């Protein structure tokens, strides 16, 4: 294909789609800067991360189905009731997280009113501490569930059903504890920058925390049906 190069004309079209076609000359949202905006990067990264975590749990789930059907040694057992209480606690933590986010979302508008931004910041941080506390109660509740199973003689290697129960609940708890580490990182940033949610990673953290909530509800349903 023979082509020639012409100097840029006044009628340059703003077509950004084709190979070798003239460029779009206006910045495109999200790609305007070389370093990217911090909140967008962290949100994209978090969405990718939860996809990978979701994929891992999908693999564990399919392993459980295959293992259950491959032999007759699967023992059914009653899930400890504390799990249902734990689930409510974890769901409540998602609510407190949202309440906190609402506070931080209106901080930029409240900056002109003296004192009001400060109250919102304190409020938002309070809800975040409550989120962390609920997360901790959830993990402690899970430990109670494990102790209750152990009291019935069900350990990790006792039966494939108990193996999968411990595996799922422990891996989820590890992820949740990791999330709490993230929560304290976000909290520190928010306290230091006076509640600028944009650069604190709060939105990315929320994706993770809500995903952990949903993941647990999924795991509980799966375990309730299969155990």
């Amino acid at each position, binding site marked *: *294909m*023979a*082509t*020639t*190069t*012409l*100097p*840029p*004309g006044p009628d*340059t079209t703003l077509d*950004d789609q*084709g*190979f*070798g*076609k*003239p*460029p*779009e*000359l206006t*910045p*495109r949202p*999200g*790609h*305007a*800067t*070389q*370093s*990217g*905006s*911090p*909140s*967008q*990067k962290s949100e*994209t*990264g978090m969405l*990718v*991360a939860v*996809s*990978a*975590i979701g*994929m*891992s*749990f999908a*693999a*564990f789930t*399919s*392993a459980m189905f*295959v*293992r259950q059907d*491959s*032999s*007759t*040694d699967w023992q059914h057992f009653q899930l400890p009731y504390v799990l249902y209480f734990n689930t409510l606690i974890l769901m409540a933590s998602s609510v407190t997280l949202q309440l906190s986010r609402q506070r931080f979302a209106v901080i930029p508008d409240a900056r002109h009113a003296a004192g009001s931004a400060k109250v919102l910041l304190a409020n938002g941080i309070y809800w975040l501490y409550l989120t962390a506390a609920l997360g901790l109660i959830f993990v402690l509740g899970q430990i109670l569930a494990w102790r209750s199973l152990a009291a019935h003689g069900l350990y*990790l*290697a006792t039966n*494939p059903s108990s*193996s999968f129960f411990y*595996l799922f609940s422990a*891996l989820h708890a590890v992820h949740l504890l990791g999330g709490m580490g993230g929560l304290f990182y976000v909290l520190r940033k928010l306290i230091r920058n006076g509640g600028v949610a944009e*650069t604190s990673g709060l939105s990315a953290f929320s994706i993770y925390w809500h995903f952990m909530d949903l993941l647990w509800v999924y795991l509980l349903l799966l375990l309730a049906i299969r155990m």
Partner: protein
Amino acid sequence: MHDTSAAHAAHQHAAPTGFIRKHIFSLDHKVIGKQYYGLALLAVFIGMVLSWLMRIHLGWPAWPIPLLDKLSAVGAPQGVMTPEYYLSLMTMHGTIMVFFVLTNAPFAAFGNYFLPIQIGAEDMAFPRFNMMSFWVTFTAFLVMMAAFFVSDGPPISGWTAYAPLSAVGGDAGPGLALGQTLWAISIAIFCIASLLGALNFIATTLDLRTKGMSLARMPLSSWAWFVTAVISLLAFAVLLPACILLILDRVAGTSFFIPAGLILSDKLQPHSGGSVLLWQHLFWFFGHPEVYIAILPSIGIVCHILPVFARKPLLGPRAAVGCMIATGFLSYMVWGHHMFVSGMSPFSANLFSVPTLVITIPMTILTLLLIGSVYGAKMRFTAASLFCLGFISVFISGGISGFFLAQPSIDIYLHATYFVVAHFHFVMAVASLFGVFAGTYFWFPKMFGRMMNEGLGKLHFWLTFIGVYCIFMPMHYLGLAGNVRRYSAFVDDYLIPLIPVHKFITIAALLTGAAQFIFLFNLIWSRFKGPVASENPWEATSLEWSTTSPPPFDNFGGRHMVVYNGPNEYGVENNGTDFVMQTSPEKIAAS
């Protein structure tokens, strides 16, 4: 709406000054890319020496190999390896090559170095994760190497670590105690590193493209790294759970993969009800996409480099991207073709056979696009372009045998023979490495600011090109003759006549391996003594050639690149040159 100045002020990180921050725990994607390259180089020479040891033993089983008894007195008494030790070396060869070379070199090494530059970014999206992913990979490598030095040596279960032998422990055989545990831990660590790396590649591609760098204008190498990152994210997210289950079976007494009534070393194993096929399903659900993790970046590199030396645009770049995406998608539907002989129902086998044959369509289109791109071109023959052409050759040679193996009826005969060994070495290993060689000769001037020696490069190409055909072509005939793989010596009547072929392959492998030292010498010599490279020695269009060689810490010296063209503007008339840089604002019109 984000404040641009704030985003500028929040530079990813300031240029480091201390030695450790600059060269060891560096956050700079370019240093991390070079670290990955160095690790892959170390790994590939270890893997190559292992293949030499195996080949010498296959050609001349009674020959004592000097110093081998120092590595393992039990595995190689007087330097002659036992059949079990042969399997240990084979396991380590496969594992090192697949994970630490083929996954690291074309994807993590070149991708880390060039993806941000090619899309006009200052660094990866998450530099700390990036540094972590390299050092976690390095830790995985150390754990894997430790398996050489434990009492009963590395595992003998192959790079696929099939259960139940990989799951039960020392009763199953040499190397299956601590060696196999180290293997499983190393691979689990490697998975975590790969997930971190993939996350970074995806976020970087999606969020850090500079102004005007639409997806359609991304160089095909960047496209390939992006698609590979997506495949890698989903594949390693499955291998990690598989490794966790394997480790639990080994150390915690669970029975995920170990069936009831298994007696090994005269001992009834205290497990029940596990599914040995479950491991195969999980492993190959990762394993087949892994093939594309190894080959797609090399395809992308070749698609990127070939037009530079053909001086004409790549044919159908959009089709090429479509083919990469289609291949990535289909790669998740074909894992069962590794398990045709596992007792799978013939209907299931057909279900896996059809997508396996379908996946050859995008791969064939890609190959034809590459051939079409050089058709009628006035090629500039350099070491880089020769390796690109060599890539096409070995990729076709290896790909064609895939048509045969995709069909269950033929695969049942050829399964576990040297035909399969020939197939995957050509299509996955050699093809991928040719992409790495092409990338090295092409990008070395940018990475180190000096040109490599072209004469030595061409010599390296011809010796390697002829060498790999001498090694792997005869293996097809061995496989057709029924020569089973993973045997350490051939004593059966039907195999004895094939021994001369093995001797020929061994000599070819030794010579081809020796030729790699030319490459190593060229690499080291050029690093210090090569002629100084200009900014754009190959007259290429993409963004890495719009900056100094090597690029400054922030890649473009504070400039904010604006992209006006695709990467494919070759064979055009432009002020006495035949190419237009991606950053040139001239309007190009077809005449």
